[in-house]
């Protein structure tokens, strides 16, 4: 009997190695896997590359991971927020690398990684600073930028319900990057609010099929 449910967040992140590229779900705080990030801070892997939409808020979650000095580089669309002071200070002090990627290109590059494409031509950012040095091509009169996949060694995501085969559902706008990050990483770890019995999730309503998920950690009830 296959059981992807892992007992603790500590155990779930225990194989994350120094230098790993980690995809972290969430848009602001919605969908951010806070407990997994806490475990990652405790685990204290270094020299990480983090891929996430934002660069952390206040003194929680992703911001604390940065503060802990674990992160060498962050790839995100929107680092600057009213409460992103931890990132802001590190960046201005030259202590963290930043690659800004348009939000849709971030999504598309994760999808390309997940679906085995070698590269994609996207119209976004053509002619801008963010396309500097990138290959371009005009197709049917539209200008495109060549973008490459973003693959994760690990993904940390937050879902709503999960089962022992790794099937996941999400809650409202907390879904955001979870499903596509799950496809784009070699090892996906999902924290869920509830672990349910196999068969309890309607096969029509499963958003992330278990094939994309390697570990499920329960933050709430097991039913």
């Amino acid at each position, binding site marked *: 009997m296959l059981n992807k449910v892992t007992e603790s967040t500590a155990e779930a992140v225990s194989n994350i190695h120094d230098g790993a590229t980690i995809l972290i779900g969430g*848009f*602001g*705080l*919605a*969908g951010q896997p806070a407990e997994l990030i806490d475990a990652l801070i405790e685990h204290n892997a270094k020299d990480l590359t983090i891929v996430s*939409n934002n660069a952390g808020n206040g003194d929680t979650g992703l911001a604390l991971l940065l503060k802990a000095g674990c992160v060498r580089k962050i790839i995100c*669309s*929107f*680092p*600057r*927020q009213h409460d992103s002071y931890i*990132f*802001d200070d590190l*960046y*201005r002090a030259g202590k963290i690398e*930043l690659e*800004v*990627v*348009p*939000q*849709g*290109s*971030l*999504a*598309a590059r*994760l*999808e390309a990684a997940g679906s085995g494409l070698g590269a994609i031509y*996207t*119209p*976004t*950012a*053509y*002619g*801008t*600073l*963010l396309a500097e040095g990138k290959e371009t091509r005009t197709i049917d009169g539209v*200008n495109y930028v060549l973008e490459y996949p973003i693959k994760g060694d690990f993904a940390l995501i937050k879902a709503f319900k999960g089962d022992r085969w790794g099937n996941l559902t*999400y*809650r*409202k*706008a*907390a*879904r*955001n*990057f*979870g*499903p*596509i990050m799950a496809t784009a990483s070699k090892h996906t770890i999902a924290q869920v609010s509830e672990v349910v019995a196999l068969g309890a999730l309607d096969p029509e309503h499963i*958003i992330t099929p278990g094939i994309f998920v390697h570990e499920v950690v329960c933050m709430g009830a097991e039913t």
Partner: protein
Amino acid sequence: MNNYTPWSVDEIAKWVAQDIEEGMYVNLGIGQPTKVAGFLPEDKDIFLHSENGVLGMGPEPAEGEEDGDLINAGKQYITLLEGGSYFHHGDSFTMIRGGHIDLCVLGAFEVAENGDIANWFLGRPKDIPAVGGAMDLAVGAKEVYVMMDHVSKNGAPKIVETLNLPITGEKCVDRIYTDLAVIDVTDQGLMVRKMVAGLTFDELQANTGAKLIQQ
């Protein structure tokens, strides 16, 4: 001495809202454009999209009913209309980049007379670049409206011949709503459609960094 009172942000938002037709799929950018939501006609079905995976955004929740999992791209609490839906970021940007969004309303630092827009980065040494969905919206939405002050805080025109700031998207702005005027970006040039009461065309031109055309 001015003989006119600039439109308030709410008044600008009303002009934008008036131009939005039933059945349109609309993305409202962070900042001033968010205000447009409050002036959409309640008897028409207009669909508000948010980059973070929401279609059919409703008004702000009542106090105490906020849900941390239900926010918009500006990270404000929202609600969902009946008939709304949730989806992941890939699908959300399929909507945007794939040309399925009829209209997006963006704030801007500058707009050039050819429709180029700058709204993501001031490029000063202390600034941290952050783009979000702006570049995707600029190239992907069928129509792009800009909503902004006509001049900057120090009085410099924000409508210019060519951008001074880093570009967000090329030739994508279709219409500009400011506190002084509503201006169409056309193949012929910047066509003034509406001006604030009491303002003369010459005064408007004097506050604008590119040649305007009187309709």
